[in-house]
């Protein structure tokens, strides 16, 4: 199982790096789908089958299809993409670095065992119970946020108001 963990996470990191390094938008999207797959593999190793399936269903099966849909409609040619400019690169690197430091700090102080299988049931029933009892407020707030985003998109995509 340990070997599989390294295979999945190694390939995931490789694909994630290629998502950024690649110049072709569609190829980047396809590589991101592979990243989601390997992440689902990691969930399977943790015996969280429901999360693994949802990962593929929601991200690879729905979100990325819409991404691809928009990319194809915009039809960005790789020749039209500007060469990278120094300020953008600097900003990206600093955000990445800050994120990395934060992540490292969280991991250092977390009580979670790293890389060990979870000692609780990650089935549908326990997750559903948690979502509708302890985390019901964040859950509902998230749904409101999504609704607001939806309304915003409808408003923005209207060519003329009435």
């Amino acid at each position, binding site marked *: 199982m340990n070997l599989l963990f390294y295979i999945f996470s190694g390939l995931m990191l490789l694909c994630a790096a290629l998502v950024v390094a690649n110049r072709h938008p569609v190829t980047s999207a396809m590589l991101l789908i592979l990243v989601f797959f390997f992440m689902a593999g990691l969930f399977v190793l943790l015996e969280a089958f429901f999360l693994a*399936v949802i990962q593929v269903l929601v991200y690879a099966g729905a979100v990325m299809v819409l991404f691809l849909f928009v990319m194809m409609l915009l039809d960005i040619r790789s020749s039209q993409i500007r060469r990278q400019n120094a300020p953008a690169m600097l900003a990206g690197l600093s955000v990445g670095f800050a994120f990395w430091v934060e992540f490292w700090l969280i991991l250092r102080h977390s009580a979670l065992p790293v890389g060990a299988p979870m000692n609780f049931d990650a089935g549908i029933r326990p997750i559903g119970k948690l979502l509708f009892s302890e985390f019901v407020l964040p859950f509902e707030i998230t749904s409101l946020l999504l609704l607001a985003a939806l309304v915003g998109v409808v408003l923005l995509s209207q060519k003329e108001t009435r």
Partner: protein
Amino acid sequence: MMTEPMIAGLWTDTVSFFGVHAVAVVLLKIAVVLFALLGLVSYTVLAERRISAFIQDRLGPNRVGWFGLLQPVADSFKFLLKENVMPAHVNRIYYVLAPCIALAPALLTFIVIPFGNTLAGEPMVIANLNVGVLWMFSIASLGVYGIVLGGWASNSKYPFLGGIRSSAQMISYEISMGLSLIPVFMHVGSLNLTEIVNAQSHRWLFLHPNLFLAFLIFMISSFAETNRLPFDLPESEQELVGGYHTEYGSMKFALFFLAEYANMITASALMVTLFFGGWQVPFALPESLSHPVTWLAPFVFQPVGFVYILSFFLKMLLFLGVFIWIRWTLPRFRYDQLMNLGWKVFLPMALANVFVMGIWMALSV
């Protein structure tokens, strides 16, 4: 990275974890199901051609073999031997990749379907997953990439329009399809397909009024998901030449074709499993058929197991027949009608169905 001893080690681990017998049985089941599925696909194509001919008062292909029964063999040779043309203007990598991406999910989804009870003590399902139905949905939702990439990589306007249409259509109908099944899960209390079949040993689920509505929504949505008429907008011949596979020929076209029929078979199998008792034989309880010889199960050739597989197979053929019958009976929807039906009719209907089912269950407790 992966050295020879490591792979060997992984293999030994797998075998020692599950046992040699279990691994061999799983491989055997995969091989049998895969061949049966591909065989059924090619004969469904023949059935479609013969039935369409019957509906249109023609004869259909009846020259190769007895009543045209060898036509699929001739067709497959034709596909394999044709020149493999690749147009000059396509994006080569995705053009070749797309048919493979279309076919692989179509074949992968079948592994969670229980196609029989037990045979020689082995459960007749390849992977008895607790998240069975969700696995089917997640893998089936990947099939759209094959179509979208095929349309986009062809670099030509009609395939592109077909790909765009297909992605919008499949995303829309996935929602009502998924929501329509929630009453089933509420009733059975499990996502595991084997448990759903076992729960139907006395009463098939479509007899329940809410679940009958769920079945109707699911069936019509699955027509849209498999890009079949009356919802075959992604390939509508009269507007888009052939839609996403206009630029494809020979075996690459055949892969798209196989994927469509494999999806149809899986959709039929899922409808049988969820609403029509799966492998259960109508009017015969499983107790009366199989259990007297349970202790002999691993040693004795059990015809009862075959009866269940045959029952499942016949029910599935019935639904395949419905798929074909509807294709040659109903005209195609317009695109706005398709979207209205998905978002303004089926989505609210499926949501209301979940609500009514909840009240029903609360009252009947």
